């Protein structure tokens, strides 16, 4: 059964708010940045509302909002120390944004290069691999983006292959 689309931006955003902050917090790792991502995402939802309102189902709207949130999260992950004019975001919580996965200095650089490369992927590959990095399983990713599990698998393997190529090329440039 397909749910009718939401008729106003606020109801839509409230309905998917849990998913929005889950993606934001799982990727950013701190509350201040997650709030910032959520706020910027809603700004974008308002700005593109006519397009979201024209979608046929709530599931399509959810997929659209999810893609917006992922792009906002990648913005934060790529530029963790950028100067911001946000409303009262605590600067002290910022360090957690790009913490190395295993505490090694090398890992921090690898991680940054990875977010850069992910941000440059085509739309669906970018969305699928970002949700995977946020801890979502394939079935959950499929539900969030309104595609089949097999489509998720196919986008994942394309994304991984493209990331391998991009990152090994960058590494050669860095060493050469």
């Amino acid at each position, binding site marked *: 059964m397909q749910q009718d689309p939401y008729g106003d931006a606020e109801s839509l955003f409230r309905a998917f708010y849990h998913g929005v902050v889950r993606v934001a917090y799982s990727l950013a790792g701190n509350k201040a940045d997650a709030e910032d991502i959520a706020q910027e995402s809603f700004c974008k939802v308002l*700005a593109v509302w006519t397009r979201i309102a024209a979608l046929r189902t709530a599931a399509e709207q959810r997929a659209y909002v999810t893609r917006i949130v992922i792009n906002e999260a990648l913005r934060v992950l790529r530029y963790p120390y950028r100067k911001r004019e946000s409303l009262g975001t605590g600067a002290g919580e910022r360090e957690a944004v790009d913490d190395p996965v295993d505490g090694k200095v090398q890992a921090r650089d690898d991680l940054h290069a*990875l977010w850069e490369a992910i941000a440059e992927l085509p*739309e669906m590959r970018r969305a699928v691999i970002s949700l995977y990095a946020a801890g979502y399983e394939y079935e959950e990713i499929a539900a969030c983006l309104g595609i089949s599990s097999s489509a998720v698998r196919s986008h994942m393997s394309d994304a991984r292959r493209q990331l391998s190529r991009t990152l090994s090329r960058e590494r050669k440039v860095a060493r050469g």
Partner: protein
Amino acid sequence: MTMGAQGDEHREILDRLHERGRQRAGALPEFDAGKTISRAYAVRDAGAVNFWNVLSPTERSAFERAARPRTFRPGSVLMREGEPAEGVVVILDGRVRVCLSEDGRERAIAERGPGDLVGERGTAPGNVRSATVVALGMVQALVMETADYVAFVSEYPGVPDLVMKQTYDRRGRP
């Protein structure tokens, strides 16, 4: 290190991120939807959003890749009312005047500056220009063709919806 392993470290990192993401989702702090929403309205109502500002760095660099940089001399015409709208222009530096011809005279109706997108009609194919835009001084701009703009918007869902905004024409013309 073997050649084959180069670039493949990301698989391991991704799997670790995946695990970390699951753990974070399990310990999700409380968020206030009302606060998020009212802050977003405040940002919008403050008028702090012009086209270039609202784009993320990723979107900006994608826009720059697909667009062509151009310099317009003072007094030169960026687009002319009634001509086919074949693209959009983002002003990076300088100011422009937006004019309409009324009763055979050019009438200035607005000015636009850095970050503004002019030529919204060029966001969709088949339109004609609704106004004439003239450079007031030296103007640095990015020019993007309609087909490239359509592709750009479909790739980046967060880009402001200018196509719909332009449907209410200032003079009631279609």
